[in-house]
Protein backbone atom coordinates (compact mmCIF):
# COMPACT_ATOMS: atom_id res chain seq x y z
CA UNK A 1 0.00 0.00 0.00
CA UNK A 2 2.72 2.44 -0.82
CA UNK A 3 2.37 3.55 -4.40
CA UNK A 4 0.18 6.53 -5.21
CA UNK A 5 -2.12 4.42 -7.36
CA UNK A 6 -2.67 1.77 -4.72
CA UNK A 7 -3.36 4.40 -2.07
CA UNK A 8 -6.02 6.17 -4.08
CA UNK A 9 -7.51 2.83 -5.01
CA UNK A 10 -7.67 1.97 -1.34
CA UNK A 11 -9.43 5.22 -0.57
CA UNK A 12 -11.90 4.61 -3.34
CA UNK A 13 -12.71 1.16 -2.04
CA UNK A 14 -13.05 2.31 1.55
CA UNK A 15 -15.34 5.16 0.58
CA UNK A 16 -18.66 3.29 0.43
CA UNK A 17 -18.21 1.89 3.91
CA UNK A 18 -17.13 5.22 5.35
CA UNK A 19 -19.95 7.12 3.65
CA UNK A 20 -22.51 4.57 4.78
CA UNK A 21 -21.31 4.67 8.38
CA UNK A 22 -21.10 8.45 8.43
CA UNK A 23 -24.57 8.75 6.93
CA UNK A 24 -25.97 6.25 9.36
CA UNK A 25 -24.65 8.27 12.25
CA UNK A 26 -24.68 11.83 11.02
CA UNK A 27 -28.13 11.98 9.43
CA UNK A 28 -30.08 10.96 12.56
CA UNK A 29 -27.86 13.08 14.78
CA UNK A 30 -28.32 16.16 12.62
CA UNK A 31 -32.04 15.57 12.38
CA UNK A 32 -32.30 15.24 16.14
CA UNK A 33 -30.38 18.48 16.52
CA UNK A 34 -32.66 20.28 14.07
CA UNK A 35 -35.84 18.93 15.67
CA UNK A 36 -34.61 19.92 19.12
CA UNK A 37 -34.81 23.60 18.20
CA UNK A 38 -38.31 23.31 16.75
CA UNK A 39 -41.76 23.18 18.17
CA UNK A 40 -42.78 20.08 16.24
CA UNK A 41 -45.95 18.15 17.16
CA UNK A 42 -46.74 15.76 14.27
CA UNK A 43 -50.33 15.02 15.29
CA UNK A 44 -51.12 18.48 16.59
CA UNK A 45 -50.25 20.81 13.76
CA UNK A 46 -46.79 19.62 12.81
CA UNK A 47 -44.06 22.24 12.51
CA UNK A 48 -44.92 25.35 14.52
CA UNK A 49 -41.78 27.44 14.26
CA UNK A 50 -38.31 27.69 15.76
CA UNK A 51 -38.12 28.04 19.50
CA UNK A 52 -34.41 28.28 20.25
CA UNK A 53 -33.43 26.56 23.51
CA UNK A 54 -36.95 26.37 24.89
CA UNK A 55 -37.15 22.58 24.48
CA UNK A 56 -33.86 22.15 26.34
CA UNK A 57 -35.08 24.27 29.24
CA UNK A 58 -38.42 22.51 29.35
CA UNK A 59 -36.84 19.07 29.32
CA UNK A 60 -34.65 19.62 32.38
CA UNK A 61 -37.19 21.67 34.32
CA UNK A 62 -39.91 19.06 33.89
CA UNK A 63 -40.76 17.21 37.11
CA UNK A 64 -39.97 13.89 35.41
CA UNK A 65 -36.36 14.76 34.58
CA UNK A 66 -34.48 14.27 37.83
CA UNK A 67 -36.38 11.12 38.86
CA UNK A 68 -35.50 9.68 35.47
CA UNK A 69 -31.80 10.48 35.93
CA UNK A 70 -31.99 8.88 39.34
CA UNK A 71 -33.66 5.77 37.93
CA UNK A 72 -30.99 5.52 35.25
CA UNK A 73 -28.19 5.78 37.79
CA UNK A 74 -29.77 3.19 40.06
CA UNK A 75 -30.31 0.72 37.25
CA UNK A 76 -26.83 1.16 35.75
CA UNK A 77 -25.15 1.11 39.16
CA UNK A 78 -27.19 -1.82 40.45
CA UNK A 79 -26.59 -3.93 37.36
CA UNK A 80 -22.86 -3.14 37.37
CA UNK A 81 -22.57 -4.06 41.04
CA UNK A 82 -24.39 -7.36 40.62
CA UNK A 83 -22.77 -8.41 37.34
CA UNK A 84 -19.21 -7.55 38.39
CA UNK A 85 -19.46 -9.17 41.83
CA UNK A 86 -21.22 -12.30 40.66
CA UNK A 87 -19.14 -12.29 37.49
CA UNK A 88 -15.92 -12.52 39.49
CA UNK A 89 -17.29 -15.30 41.68
CA UNK A 90 -18.67 -17.24 38.71
CA UNK A 91 -15.43 -16.80 36.78
CA UNK A 92 -13.44 -18.24 39.69
CA UNK A 93 -15.91 -21.10 39.95
CA UNK A 94 -15.84 -21.87 36.22
CA UNK A 95 -12.05 -21.76 36.24
CA UNK A 96 -11.97 -24.81 38.53
CA UNK A 97 -11.52 -28.09 36.70
CA UNK A 98 -14.80 -29.99 36.71
CA UNK A 99 -16.76 -32.57 34.80
CA UNK A 100 -18.70 -31.18 31.84
CA UNK A 101 -16.84 -27.89 31.88
CA UNK A 102 -17.56 -27.03 28.23
CA UNK A 103 -21.27 -27.69 28.61
CA UNK A 104 -21.52 -25.64 31.81
CA UNK A 105 -19.71 -22.73 30.21
CA UNK A 106 -22.08 -22.69 27.24
CA UNK A 107 -25.06 -22.76 29.61
CA UNK A 108 -23.65 -19.85 31.58
CA UNK A 109 -23.20 -17.80 28.44
CA UNK A 110 -26.66 -18.67 27.07
CA UNK A 111 -28.67 -15.76 28.56
CA UNK A 112 -26.59 -13.37 26.48
CA UNK A 113 -28.11 -14.83 23.31
CA UNK A 114 -31.69 -14.17 24.42
CA UNK A 115 -33.18 -11.01 22.96
CA UNK A 116 -33.90 -8.31 25.57
CA UNK A 117 -37.60 -8.20 24.66
CA UNK A 118 -37.92 -11.97 25.02
CA UNK A 119 -36.06 -12.12 28.31
CA UNK A 120 -38.16 -9.24 29.67
CA UNK A 121 -41.37 -11.05 28.74
CA UNK A 122 -40.15 -14.40 30.06
CA UNK A 123 -39.23 -12.86 33.39
CA UNK A 124 -42.45 -10.92 33.60
CA UNK A 125 -44.82 -13.75 32.73
CA UNK A 126 -43.01 -16.90 33.86
CA UNK A 127 -41.12 -15.79 36.94
CA UNK A 128 -42.50 -12.56 38.35
CA UNK A 129 -46.19 -12.98 37.61
CA UNK A 130 -47.98 -12.66 40.97
CA UNK A 131 -50.45 -15.46 40.17
CA UNK A 132 -48.70 -17.98 37.95
CA UNK A 133 -45.04 -17.01 38.17
CA UNK A 134 -42.51 -19.55 39.38
CA UNK A 135 -41.33 -17.16 42.07
CA UNK A 136 -44.85 -16.70 43.47
CA UNK A 137 -45.24 -20.49 43.58
CA UNK A 138 -41.98 -20.68 45.45
CA UNK A 139 -43.12 -18.05 47.93
CA UNK A 140 -46.46 -19.79 48.41
CA UNK A 141 -44.80 -23.17 48.96
CA UNK A 142 -43.15 -21.60 52.00
CA UNK A 143 -46.51 -20.20 53.04
CA UNK A 144 -45.50 -16.62 52.30
CA UNK A 145 -47.46 -14.04 50.36
CA UNK A 146 -46.02 -13.76 46.86
CA UNK A 147 -44.23 -10.52 46.07
CA UNK A 148 -45.83 -8.47 43.36
CA UNK A 149 -42.49 -7.93 41.76
CA UNK A 150 -43.01 -5.44 38.97
CA UNK A 151 -45.13 -2.98 40.93
CA UNK A 152 -43.99 -3.32 44.54
CA UNK A 153 -40.26 -3.73 43.94
CA UNK A 154 -40.22 -2.56 40.36
CA UNK A 155 -36.68 -1.17 40.42
CA UNK A 156 -35.21 -4.33 41.90
CA UNK A 157 -37.09 -6.41 39.33
CA UNK A 158 -35.68 -4.45 36.40
CA UNK A 159 -32.18 -4.57 37.86
CA UNK A 160 -32.51 -8.35 38.29
CA UNK A 161 -33.72 -8.90 34.74
CA UNK A 162 -30.99 -6.78 33.19
CA UNK A 163 -28.33 -8.29 35.47
CA UNK A 164 -29.38 -11.75 34.38
CA UNK A 165 -28.80 -10.69 30.79
CA UNK A 166 -25.43 -9.09 31.34
CA UNK A 167 -23.94 -11.49 33.85
CA UNK A 168 -22.72 -13.85 31.07
CA UNK A 169 -20.82 -11.03 29.42
CA UNK A 170 -19.05 -10.06 32.65
CA UNK A 171 -18.36 -13.70 33.49
CA UNK A 172 -16.92 -14.42 30.07
CA UNK A 173 -14.49 -11.51 30.09
CA UNK A 174 -13.45 -12.10 33.70
CA UNK A 175 -13.04 -15.84 33.09
CA UNK A 176 -10.57 -15.26 30.26
CA UNK A 177 -8.72 -12.81 32.50
CA UNK A 178 -8.51 -15.32 35.33
CA UNK A 179 -7.26 -18.00 32.98
CA UNK A 180 -4.32 -15.79 32.08
CA UNK A 181 -3.17 -15.60 35.71
CA UNK A 182 0.14 -17.38 36.21
CA UNK A 183 -0.51 -20.24 38.63
CA UNK A 184 3.01 -19.88 40.00
CA UNK A 185 2.02 -16.47 41.36
CA UNK A 186 -0.72 -18.08 43.42
CA UNK A 187 1.64 -20.78 44.59
CA UNK A 188 4.24 -18.18 45.52
CA UNK A 189 1.61 -16.30 47.52
CA UNK A 190 0.63 -19.56 49.20
CA UNK A 191 4.25 -20.20 50.16
CA UNK A 192 4.48 -16.60 51.35
CA UNK A 193 1.79 -17.38 53.89
CA UNK A 194 -1.22 -15.77 52.23
CA UNK A 195 -4.47 -17.58 53.08
CA UNK A 196 -7.17 -18.04 50.44
CA UNK A 197 -8.86 -14.70 51.02
CA UNK A 198 -5.61 -12.73 50.99
CA UNK A 199 -4.62 -14.47 47.79
CA UNK A 200 -7.91 -13.36 46.25
CA UNK A 201 -7.49 -9.82 47.54
CA UNK A 202 -3.80 -9.31 46.80
CA UNK A 203 -3.23 -11.43 43.70
CA UNK A 204 -6.43 -12.32 41.84
CA UNK A 205 -8.30 -9.04 42.22
CA UNK A 206 -5.42 -6.78 41.10
CA UNK A 207 -4.87 -9.14 38.18
CA UNK A 208 -8.52 -8.69 37.22
CA UNK A 209 -8.59 -4.92 37.63
CA UNK A 210 -8.04 -4.29 33.95
CA UNK A 211 -10.76 -6.70 32.87
CA UNK A 212 -13.14 -5.23 35.46
CA UNK A 213 -12.61 -1.72 34.08
CA UNK A 214 -13.36 -2.94 30.59
CA UNK A 215 -16.50 -4.73 31.75
CA UNK A 216 -17.68 -1.58 33.52
CA UNK A 217 -16.94 0.60 30.50
CA UNK A 218 -18.68 -1.52 27.91
CA UNK A 219 -21.65 -2.36 30.12
CA UNK A 220 -22.24 1.24 31.15
CA UNK A 221 -22.47 2.38 27.55
CA UNK A 222 -25.00 -0.33 26.76
CA UNK A 223 -26.90 -0.03 30.04
CA UNK A 224 -27.49 3.69 29.59
CA UNK A 225 -29.62 2.77 26.60
CA UNK A 226 -31.69 -0.15 27.94
CA UNK A 227 -35.23 0.15 26.76
CA UNK A 228 -36.87 -3.13 25.79
CA UNK A 229 -36.78 -4.57 29.30
CA UNK A 230 -38.68 -1.58 30.64
CA UNK A 231 -41.04 -1.33 27.70
CA UNK A 232 -42.31 -4.90 28.00
CA UNK A 233 -42.52 -4.97 31.79
CA UNK A 234 -43.46 -1.76 33.61
CA UNK A 235 -43.77 0.63 30.69
CA UNK A 236 -41.91 3.17 32.76
CA UNK A 237 -44.38 3.06 35.63
CA UNK A 238 -43.55 2.59 39.33
CA UNK A 239 -40.44 4.74 39.21
CA UNK A 240 -38.70 2.82 36.47
CA UNK A 241 -38.71 5.63 33.94
CA UNK A 242 -35.12 6.06 32.85
CA UNK A 243 -33.79 8.90 30.76
CA UNK A 244 -34.04 6.79 27.62
CA UNK A 245 -37.59 5.86 28.43
CA UNK A 246 -38.52 9.45 29.19
CA UNK A 247 -37.27 10.52 25.77
CA UNK A 248 -39.31 7.75 24.17
CA UNK A 249 -42.40 8.91 25.99
CA UNK A 250 -41.88 12.53 25.03
CA UNK A 251 -41.52 11.66 21.35
CA UNK A 252 -44.02 8.86 20.87
CA UNK A 253 -46.55 9.11 23.67
CA UNK A 254 -46.78 12.90 23.94
CA UNK A 255 -45.96 13.24 20.25
CA UNK A 256 -43.60 16.10 21.07
CA UNK A 257 -40.68 15.47 18.75
CA UNK A 258 -38.92 18.73 19.59
CA UNK A 259 -38.91 18.13 23.33
CA UNK A 260 -37.84 14.50 22.93
CA UNK A 261 -35.03 15.48 20.58
CA UNK A 262 -33.68 17.93 23.13
CA UNK A 263 -33.66 15.09 25.65
CA UNK A 264 -31.91 12.91 23.09
CA UNK A 265 -29.15 15.48 22.71
CA UNK A 266 -28.76 15.58 26.50
CA UNK A 267 -28.42 11.82 26.50
CA UNK A 268 -25.80 11.93 23.75
CA UNK A 269 -23.78 14.51 25.67
CA UNK A 270 -24.13 12.56 28.91
CA UNK A 271 -23.06 9.29 27.33
CA UNK A 272 -20.07 10.97 25.72
CA UNK A 273 -18.94 12.56 28.97
CA UNK A 274 -19.20 9.19 30.62
CA UNK A 275 -17.41 7.39 27.82
CA UNK A 276 -14.56 9.91 27.84
CA UNK A 277 -14.24 9.62 31.59
CA UNK A 278 -14.11 5.84 31.43
CA UNK A 279 -11.72 5.86 28.50
CA UNK A 280 -9.28 7.89 30.55
CA UNK A 281 -9.56 5.52 33.48
CA UNK A 282 -9.13 2.50 31.23
CA UNK A 283 -6.26 4.18 29.42
CA UNK A 284 -4.52 4.77 32.73
CA UNK A 285 -5.14 1.20 33.69
CA UNK A 286 -3.88 -0.16 30.39
CA UNK A 287 -0.67 1.82 30.55
CA UNK A 288 0.66 -0.25 33.39
Amino acid sequence: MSTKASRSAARLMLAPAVILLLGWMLVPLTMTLIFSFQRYLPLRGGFQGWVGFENYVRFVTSSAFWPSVQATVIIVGGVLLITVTLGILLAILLDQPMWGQGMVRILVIAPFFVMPTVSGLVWKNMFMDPNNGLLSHLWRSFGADPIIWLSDVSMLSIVLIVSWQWLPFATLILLTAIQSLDSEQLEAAEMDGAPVLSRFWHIILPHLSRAITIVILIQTIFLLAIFAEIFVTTQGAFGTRTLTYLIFQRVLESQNVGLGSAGGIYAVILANIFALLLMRIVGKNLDR
Partner: protein
Amino acid sequence: MGQIVLEQVTKSFGEVTVIPPLDLTIEDGEFTVFVGPSGCGKSTLLRLIAGLEDVTSGEIRIDGRPSASIPPAKRGLAMVFQSYALYPHMTVRKNIAFPLRMAGLDKTEQDRRVKQAAAVLNLTDYLDRRPGQLSGGQRQRVAIGRAIVREPAAFLFDEPLSNLDAALRVGMRLEISELHNRLKTTMIYVTHDQVEAMTMADKIVVLRAGHIEQVGSPLELYRAPRNLFVAGFIGSPRMNLIEGPEAAKHDATTIGIRPEHISISAEEGRWSGVVGVSEHLGSDTFFHVHQTGLAESITVRADGEVSFKHGDRIHMTPRDDMIHRFDDKGSRIA
Protein backbone atom coordinates in the same frame (compact mmCIF):
# COMPACT_ATOMS: atom_id res chain seq x y z
CA MET B 1 17.90 -25.61 61.34
CA GLY B 2 16.86 -27.19 58.11
CA GLN B 3 17.28 -30.91 57.91
CA ILE B 4 14.88 -32.52 55.47
CA VAL B 5 14.27 -36.24 55.44
CA LEU B 6 12.23 -38.08 52.82
CA GLU B 7 11.14 -41.56 53.77
CA GLN B 8 9.54 -43.94 51.27
CA VAL B 9 7.93 -40.97 49.55
CA THR B 10 5.78 -41.73 46.51
CA LYS B 11 3.68 -39.55 44.26
CA SER B 12 1.14 -40.59 41.64
CA PHE B 13 -1.11 -38.48 39.49
CA GLY B 14 -4.05 -40.80 38.92
CA GLU B 15 -2.66 -43.94 37.32
CA VAL B 16 0.73 -42.45 36.59
CA THR B 17 3.42 -42.93 39.20
CA VAL B 18 5.82 -40.05 39.00
CA ILE B 19 7.88 -40.87 42.06
CA PRO B 20 8.30 -44.50 43.13
CA PRO B 21 9.31 -45.04 46.78
CA LEU B 22 12.24 -42.76 47.47
CA ASP B 23 14.47 -42.13 50.47
CA LEU B 24 16.70 -39.12 50.83
CA THR B 25 18.25 -37.09 53.62
CA ILE B 26 19.27 -33.49 53.15
CA GLU B 27 21.47 -32.28 55.98
CA ASP B 28 21.18 -28.87 57.57
CA GLY B 29 23.11 -26.21 55.68
CA GLU B 30 23.71 -28.39 52.65
CA PHE B 31 23.41 -27.13 49.08
CA THR B 32 21.65 -30.01 47.37
CA VAL B 33 20.98 -30.06 43.66
CA PHE B 34 18.35 -32.27 42.06
CA VAL B 35 19.43 -32.85 38.50
CA GLY B 36 18.01 -34.95 35.70
CA PRO B 37 16.49 -34.70 32.25
CA SER B 38 13.12 -33.02 31.91
CA GLY B 39 10.24 -35.10 33.15
CA CYS B 40 12.36 -37.00 35.66
CA GLY B 41 10.27 -35.85 38.61
CA LYS B 42 12.74 -33.39 40.10
CA SER B 43 10.32 -30.47 40.15
CA THR B 44 7.58 -32.69 41.53
CA LEU B 45 9.92 -33.75 44.31
CA LEU B 46 10.60 -30.11 45.15
CA ARG B 47 6.90 -29.31 45.15
CA LEU B 48 6.29 -32.24 47.49
CA ILE B 49 8.85 -30.84 49.91
CA ALA B 50 7.32 -27.36 49.56
CA GLY B 51 3.87 -28.76 50.25
CA LEU B 52 2.39 -27.54 46.98
CA GLU B 53 1.61 -31.18 46.20
CA ASP B 54 0.55 -33.87 48.67
CA VAL B 55 2.60 -37.03 48.93
CA THR B 56 0.69 -40.15 47.90
CA SER B 57 2.41 -42.17 50.59
CA GLY B 58 5.50 -41.95 52.75
CA GLU B 59 6.68 -39.14 54.95
CA ILE B 60 8.62 -35.91 54.65
CA ARG B 61 10.17 -34.68 57.89
CA ILE B 62 11.44 -31.14 58.20
CA ASP B 63 13.62 -30.75 61.30
CA GLY B 64 12.23 -34.02 62.55
CA ARG B 65 8.61 -32.89 62.31
CA PRO B 66 6.34 -34.90 59.99
CA SER B 67 5.10 -32.33 57.51
CA ALA B 68 2.01 -34.00 56.07
CA SER B 69 -0.41 -31.83 58.02
CA ILE B 70 1.62 -28.62 57.86
CA PRO B 71 0.48 -26.18 55.16
CA PRO B 72 3.17 -24.81 52.81
CA ALA B 73 3.36 -21.43 54.52
CA LYS B 74 4.07 -22.98 57.92
CA ARG B 75 6.88 -25.28 56.80
CA GLY B 76 9.46 -22.55 57.07
CA LEU B 77 10.54 -23.01 53.47
CA ALA B 78 10.89 -20.32 50.84
CA MET B 79 10.65 -21.05 47.15
CA VAL B 80 12.04 -19.29 44.10
CA PHE B 81 10.06 -20.14 40.99
CA GLN B 82 11.21 -20.60 37.41
CA SER B 83 8.97 -17.75 36.24
CA TYR B 84 10.00 -15.73 39.33
CA ALA B 85 6.26 -15.41 40.11
CA LEU B 86 6.62 -11.77 41.15
CA TYR B 87 3.41 -9.88 41.81
CA PRO B 88 3.23 -7.53 38.80
CA HIS B 89 1.04 -4.86 40.39
CA MET B 90 3.30 -4.37 43.42
CA THR B 91 6.56 -2.47 43.62
CA VAL B 92 9.76 -4.34 44.36
CA ARG B 93 9.51 -3.14 47.96
CA LYS B 94 5.99 -4.52 48.35
CA ASN B 95 6.94 -7.74 46.60
CA ILE B 96 9.76 -8.39 49.03
CA ALA B 97 7.68 -7.29 52.02
CA PHE B 98 4.68 -9.45 51.04
CA PRO B 99 5.57 -12.52 53.12
CA LEU B 100 6.33 -10.26 56.09
CA ARG B 101 3.03 -8.47 55.69
CA MET B 102 1.24 -11.81 55.56
CA ALA B 103 3.07 -12.85 58.72
CA GLY B 104 1.75 -9.70 60.41
CA LEU B 105 5.10 -8.05 61.19
CA ASP B 106 4.98 -4.39 62.09
CA LYS B 107 5.89 -1.75 59.51
CA THR B 108 9.30 -0.77 60.88
CA GLU B 109 10.48 -4.35 61.11
CA GLN B 110 9.20 -5.00 57.58
CA ASP B 111 11.11 -1.98 56.34
CA ARG B 112 14.29 -2.97 58.11
CA ARG B 113 14.29 -6.47 56.65
CA VAL B 114 13.40 -5.31 53.16
CA LYS B 115 16.27 -2.78 53.22
CA GLN B 116 18.65 -5.43 54.48
CA ALA B 117 17.67 -7.88 51.76
CA ALA B 118 17.82 -5.16 49.11
CA ALA B 119 21.32 -4.22 50.21
CA VAL B 120 22.49 -7.83 50.02
CA LEU B 121 21.03 -8.24 46.53
CA ASN B 122 21.95 -4.81 45.08
CA LEU B 123 18.32 -3.85 44.72
CA THR B 124 18.27 -0.68 46.82
CA ASP B 125 17.90 1.60 43.78
CA TYR B 126 15.03 -0.40 42.36
CA LEU B 127 12.76 -0.68 45.39
CA ASP B 128 10.07 1.59 43.97
CA ARG B 129 9.93 0.04 40.52
CA ARG B 130 7.51 -2.57 39.36
CA PRO B 131 8.68 -5.99 38.18
CA GLY B 132 7.77 -5.06 34.60
CA GLN B 133 10.44 -2.37 34.63
CA LEU B 134 13.25 -4.73 35.68
CA SER B 135 15.60 -6.91 33.65
CA GLY B 136 15.54 -10.69 33.97
CA GLY B 137 18.46 -10.79 36.37
CA GLN B 138 16.95 -8.11 38.58
CA ARG B 139 13.63 -9.93 38.69
CA GLN B 140 15.49 -13.04 39.72
CA ARG B 141 17.11 -11.13 42.54
CA VAL B 142 13.74 -9.76 43.70
CA ALA B 143 12.41 -13.31 43.80
CA ILE B 144 15.40 -14.33 45.90
CA GLY B 145 14.89 -11.25 48.08
CA ARG B 146 11.33 -12.27 48.73
CA ALA B 147 12.64 -15.65 49.85
CA ILE B 148 15.44 -14.27 52.03
CA VAL B 149 13.33 -11.91 54.14
CA ARG B 150 11.37 -14.78 55.56
CA GLU B 151 14.56 -16.20 57.06
CA PRO B 152 13.46 -19.70 56.11
CA ALA B 153 14.85 -23.00 57.32
CA ALA B 154 15.54 -23.93 53.73
CA PHE B 155 15.40 -22.38 50.27
CA LEU B 156 13.85 -24.22 47.36
CA PHE B 157 14.91 -23.17 43.87
CA ASP B 158 12.93 -24.46 40.88
CA GLU B 159 15.13 -24.01 37.80
CA PRO B 160 15.65 -20.35 38.70
CA LEU B 161 18.21 -19.57 36.00
CA SER B 162 16.64 -21.21 32.98
CA ASN B 163 15.02 -17.97 31.76
CA LEU B 164 18.27 -15.97 31.84
CA ASP B 165 20.82 -15.56 29.07
CA ALA B 166 24.11 -17.43 29.29
CA ALA B 167 26.27 -14.61 30.68
CA LEU B 168 23.70 -13.67 33.34
CA ARG B 169 23.29 -17.29 34.28
CA VAL B 170 26.97 -17.59 35.14
CA GLY B 171 26.74 -14.42 37.22
CA MET B 172 23.62 -15.49 39.11
CA ARG B 173 25.16 -18.91 39.71
CA LEU B 174 27.99 -17.23 41.56
CA GLU B 175 25.61 -14.96 43.46
CA ILE B 176 23.50 -17.85 44.66
CA SER B 177 26.62 -19.76 45.74
CA GLU B 178 27.87 -16.66 47.58
CA LEU B 179 24.50 -16.34 49.25
CA HIS B 180 24.69 -19.91 50.43
CA ASN B 181 28.16 -19.39 51.85
CA ARG B 182 26.95 -16.34 53.74
CA LEU B 183 23.60 -17.61 55.01
CA LYS B 184 24.64 -21.23 55.54
CA THR B 185 21.00 -22.21 55.09
CA THR B 186 19.87 -25.45 53.54
CA MET B 187 19.21 -24.99 49.84
CA ILE B 188 17.55 -27.37 47.44
CA TYR B 189 18.08 -26.49 43.82
CA VAL B 190 16.40 -28.12 40.85
CA THR B 191 18.00 -27.92 37.43
CA HIS B 192 18.43 -29.91 34.25
CA ASP B 193 21.78 -28.27 33.62
CA GLN B 194 24.62 -30.47 34.86
CA VAL B 195 27.02 -27.50 34.80
CA GLU B 196 24.90 -25.71 37.41
CA ALA B 197 24.78 -28.89 39.42
CA MET B 198 28.55 -29.42 39.29
CA THR B 199 29.48 -25.85 40.10
CA MET B 200 27.05 -25.13 42.93
CA ALA B 201 26.25 -28.32 44.76
CA ASP B 202 27.59 -29.79 47.97
CA LYS B 203 25.52 -32.82 47.09
CA ILE B 204 24.05 -33.81 43.76
CA VAL B 205 21.02 -36.06 43.48
CA VAL B 206 20.74 -37.49 39.97
CA LEU B 207 17.18 -38.46 39.15
CA ARG B 208 15.72 -40.47 36.30
CA ALA B 209 12.02 -41.28 36.06
CA GLY B 210 11.58 -40.56 39.75
CA HIS B 211 14.38 -42.91 40.77
CA ILE B 212 17.50 -41.67 42.48
CA GLU B 213 20.34 -42.88 40.27
CA GLN B 214 23.14 -41.61 42.49
CA VAL B 215 23.73 -39.24 45.38
CA GLY B 216 27.11 -37.72 46.06
CA SER B 217 29.41 -34.75 45.86
CA PRO B 218 30.08 -33.39 42.37
CA LEU B 219 33.54 -34.96 42.25
CA GLU B 220 32.33 -38.33 43.49
CA LEU B 221 29.84 -38.37 40.67
CA TYR B 222 32.47 -37.29 38.20
CA ARG B 223 35.08 -39.79 39.33
CA ALA B 224 32.88 -42.77 40.00
CA PRO B 225 29.51 -42.65 38.23
CA ARG B 226 27.51 -45.56 39.50
CA ASN B 227 25.93 -46.39 36.16
CA LEU B 228 25.80 -45.48 32.49
CA PHE B 229 23.08 -42.87 32.99
CA VAL B 230 25.05 -40.86 35.53
CA ALA B 231 28.21 -41.34 33.47
CA GLY B 232 26.50 -39.86 30.45
CA PHE B 233 24.78 -37.08 32.36
CA ILE B 234 27.58 -35.67 34.50
CA GLY B 235 30.52 -34.07 32.74
CA SER B 236 30.69 -31.81 29.72
CA PRO B 237 31.20 -32.77 26.96
CA ARG B 238 29.69 -36.18 27.60
CA MET B 239 31.76 -39.21 28.43
CA ASN B 240 32.58 -41.40 25.40
CA LEU B 241 30.91 -44.78 25.76
CA ILE B 242 32.45 -47.63 23.83
CA GLU B 243 31.00 -51.11 23.43
CA GLY B 244 32.14 -54.23 21.65
CA PRO B 245 35.60 -55.83 21.45
CA GLU B 246 37.39 -52.80 22.88
CA ALA B 247 35.19 -53.00 25.98
CA ALA B 248 35.70 -56.74 26.19
CA LYS B 249 39.45 -56.17 26.47
CA HIS B 250 38.66 -54.55 29.83
CA ASP B 251 36.23 -57.35 30.88
CA ALA B 252 33.24 -55.02 30.52
CA THR B 253 30.17 -54.62 28.31
CA THR B 254 30.71 -50.91 28.01
CA ILE B 255 33.65 -48.75 28.84
CA GLY B 256 33.57 -45.03 29.32
CA ILE B 257 36.35 -42.53 28.87
CA ARG B 258 35.95 -38.78 29.31
CA PRO B 259 37.14 -36.49 26.47
CA GLU B 260 39.68 -34.88 28.82
CA HIS B 261 41.32 -38.25 29.55
CA ILE B 262 42.33 -39.00 26.00
CA SER B 263 45.59 -37.70 24.63
CA ILE B 264 45.89 -36.92 20.98
CA SER B 265 48.75 -37.16 18.51
CA ALA B 266 49.38 -36.94 14.78
CA GLU B 267 51.76 -39.90 14.66
CA GLU B 268 50.84 -42.68 17.02
CA GLY B 269 48.29 -43.87 19.54
CA ARG B 270 46.14 -46.81 20.51
CA TRP B 271 43.10 -45.68 18.50
CA SER B 272 42.85 -43.67 15.30
CA GLY B 273 40.15 -41.80 13.45
CA VAL B 274 39.30 -38.91 11.17
CA VAL B 275 38.63 -35.45 12.59
CA GLY B 276 35.09 -34.19 11.98
CA VAL B 277 33.93 -30.99 13.57
CA SER B 278 36.36 -29.28 15.89
CA GLU B 279 35.10 -26.77 18.44
CA HIS B 280 37.65 -24.13 19.41
CA LEU B 281 36.88 -22.55 22.76
CA GLY B 282 40.23 -20.79 23.03
CA SER B 283 41.33 -22.52 26.20
CA ASP B 284 40.34 -25.93 24.90
CA THR B 285 39.55 -27.54 21.62
CA PHE B 286 37.07 -30.37 21.30
CA PHE B 287 37.55 -32.71 18.37
CA HIS B 288 34.76 -34.99 17.25
CA VAL B 289 36.58 -37.92 15.74
CA HIS B 290 34.83 -40.31 13.36
CA GLN B 291 35.66 -43.63 11.70
CA THR B 292 37.36 -44.95 14.78
CA GLY B 293 35.78 -48.41 14.58
CA LEU B 294 34.85 -48.02 18.27
CA ALA B 295 31.83 -45.75 18.47
CA GLU B 296 30.01 -43.52 16.04
CA SER B 297 32.04 -40.57 17.19
CA ILE B 298 34.56 -39.97 19.94
CA THR B 299 34.99 -36.59 21.54
CA VAL B 300 38.48 -35.60 22.58
CA ARG B 301 39.61 -32.58 24.52
CA ALA B 302 42.92 -31.05 23.53
CA ASP B 303 44.80 -27.92 24.31
CA GLY B 304 43.47 -24.75 22.72
CA GLU B 305 46.54 -24.42 20.50
CA VAL B 306 46.33 -27.89 18.97
CA SER B 307 44.96 -27.55 15.49
CA PHE B 308 43.90 -30.43 13.33
CA LYS B 309 41.76 -29.79 10.33
CA HIS B 310 38.58 -31.44 9.18
CA GLY B 311 39.53 -34.73 7.54
CA ASP B 312 42.94 -35.15 9.22
CA ARG B 313 43.74 -38.63 10.49
CA ILE B 314 44.77 -38.54 14.15
CA HIS B 315 45.71 -40.99 16.85
CA MET B 316 44.32 -41.15 20.36
CA THR B 317 45.44 -42.79 23.59
CA PRO B 318 43.14 -43.09 26.60
CA ARG B 319 44.49 -42.93 30.12
CA ASP B 320 44.04 -46.47 31.42
CA ASP B 321 43.43 -45.40 35.02
CA MET B 322 40.57 -43.18 33.88
CA ILE B 323 38.61 -45.84 32.06
CA HIS B 324 35.20 -46.53 33.62
CA ARG B 325 33.88 -50.06 33.22
CA PHE B 326 30.20 -51.00 33.16
CA ASP B 327 28.54 -54.42 33.07
CA ASP B 328 25.69 -55.58 30.84
CA LYS B 329 23.12 -53.96 33.14
CA GLY B 330 24.89 -50.64 32.87
CA SER B 331 26.17 -50.71 36.44
CA ARG B 332 29.69 -49.75 37.31
CA ILE B 333 32.25 -52.52 37.81
CA ALA B 334 34.42 -51.50 40.75
